[in-house]
């Protein structure tokens, strides 16, 4: 136990408002925090659906959960069921074998049913394109509010995408 406390003390708090490589993150985080609070009055519930990614985009979603990004502090939580989700974060081109599961998840999500498509694959099918096995971009299967390019997009870009979707929904 002593060692554990020592390590905690040595490292201190790393959560940052403005990490050097993503100077824009501070502004995004601040806005996101405000918008989520105003619009939902509670945490924004996100459900991630991997519709056929290479798992690269998942790495960045995992990274968002690192102490550097302090998601919970921004009023965002990942939930286990689409029924409790305000927003779906969809990665990958949509594999034909995942098409139905994605549709079902979308149908089970209550309004406002925001959808953010992640990565070049989610935007336009990426390197996999459309084929007998891939339906390509997410918007070919369910309505998409915001698409975030990048291969994979950085955690800051993913946060920006979420903010844009929530913002647009509030305005609309």
């Amino acid at each position: 136990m002593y060692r554990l406390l020592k390590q905690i003390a040595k490292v201190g708090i790393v959560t940052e408002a403005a990490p050097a490589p993503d100077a824009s993150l501070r502004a995004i985080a601040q806005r996101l925090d405000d918008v989520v609070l105003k619009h939902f009055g509670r945490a924004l519930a996100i459900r991630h659906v991997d519709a056929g990614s290479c798992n690269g985009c998942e790495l960045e979603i995992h990274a968002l959960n690192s102490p550097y990004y302090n998601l919970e502090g921004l009023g965002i939580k990942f939930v286990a069921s689409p029924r409790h989700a305000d927003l779906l974060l969809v990665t990958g081109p949509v594999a034909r074998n995942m098409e139905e599961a994605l549709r079902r998840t979308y149908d089970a999500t209550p309004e406002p049913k925001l959808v953010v498509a992640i990565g070049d694959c989610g935007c336009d099918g990426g390197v996999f394109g459309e084929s007998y096995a891939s339906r390509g971009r997410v918007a070919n299967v369910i309505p998409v509010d915001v698409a975030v390019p990048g291969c994979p997009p950085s955690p800051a870009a993913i946060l920006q995408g979420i903010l844009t979707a929530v913002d647009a929904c509030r305005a609309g």
Partner: protein
Amino acid sequence: MTPTLPNIVLAPVSGAVPAWRAEADAAHWRAACEHVAQAGGRLAALWASDERARGTGYRVCALLVVHEGLVCLELRVPQDAPVYPDLAALFPAAGRMQRAAFDLVGVRALRPEGDVPDPRPWLRHGAWPEDAFPLRRDFEAAGTFPTELDRYRFVKVEGEGVHEIPVGPVHAGTIEPGHFRFSIVGEKLLRLEERLGYKHKGIEKRFTALSLEDGARLAGRISGDSTVAYAWAYAMALEGITGAQPSARALGLRALLLERERVANHLGDLGYLGNDCALAFGFAQFWRMKEDLLRANQALFGHRYLMDRIVPGGVRCDVDAAGAKRLVGEALRLKDELRAMRSIYYNHAGLQDRCITTGRLTPRNAARLGVVGLAARASGHAMDARAHPGFAPYDRFSPKVASHRNGDVAARIVVRFEEAFESLRLQRVILEQLADGPRQVPLGAAPEGAFGLGWVEGWRGEVIVALEAGADGRTRRCHPHDPSWQNWPALEHAVIGNIVPDFPLINKSFNLSYSGQDL
């Protein structure tokens, strides 16, 4: 030294790893595989291709690992009777590969009794009909079919008090999709049946539409967490075909990137494994370290996960003196932090309690199932392609192979720690010895029909790429092979007798790729 196989004349496959190939008829093909199985060799991969345009029907390739290196045994399968001898009785890992080969090319493995070992589809869920085979050359890549009803037959476990729990394909949490069917009594797991293939997106077909050079980008996206290993294996195969020799500097940089990928993944896994044992502190620490490493990757190499940094002919990045200094400093700092974390993990009663004896894969089962990589090393099999047969530049560094005998979650944690330490040491040695030389050399011509192999020990296990050149620099066939093919069936064994709530922990301790095996 050329391996000897009964009635088989092997020809060398040129490239960075020791490899040979030969064509054989069905009886000799099967007998040679049996010989290898009995001599303690294993099956690395199995795939099929359509050779009707050449007038030779179909082809099934069994890629075997023998002491000397890789042996690719090729079998002609007649067009009018597309069957071949089953290998699953020799190598259980062949089972799913044979089912995939049927789904994609339409060649069936038959047992000596004349029946099909497991006729259920593996990658085909209903997106294309049973009598259409996407990897046949007359199958249009863009062709789509009405979705068929997916009626997969899971194995039923009978018995008093046995319940079934189906989970997936969409899971709670950020995990790739797959289906798990648990048969349980009370809290105890009697049986797990996996069903994968949900992420099948036609990667092997896609390769055939690309030039050999453009294939590198796709190879780097087969399993994003192993992008470096795939890009290297692909480059190795193509360099074998074209005779290109990357410079010593490029090879050193490749190894540097591969070790960074290994450390990044091990850090992430160690964090999640702590988290699953209610040690949220471990998660926070390891993910902070991982994020620092990713940011250094971005700053020095231009990509957090190092995608597209390895290209056929060399690399597309470099390190200057200041960069090298930063990386050495990082490696030394990480070593100290890892030491502190290791002592916390090894002394944490709760963590030890959850991980010791949990999810045990015995050395015997690991050998029987042909398990590879990290999971094999945690179950008493010290195999690592970096050390044996070794490929440049690792032959200069004598990497230490971590291993453990217990095969439980704790052993897989120990192996990750040990490998991370060794990887940090290797990074320093690589940087110290970085030779001068061009980043990239020209590739040279790729004669039609030329064949190359790549074999790289990624963080999860061996990543293999088999590549055949087509006309005009195009790709005739590319089979990328993920270690998860071998290791997914081992997970089914490792969970038996454990309690249901331990499944996520056991699963995480293997951390297998779905996209890498779904292709």
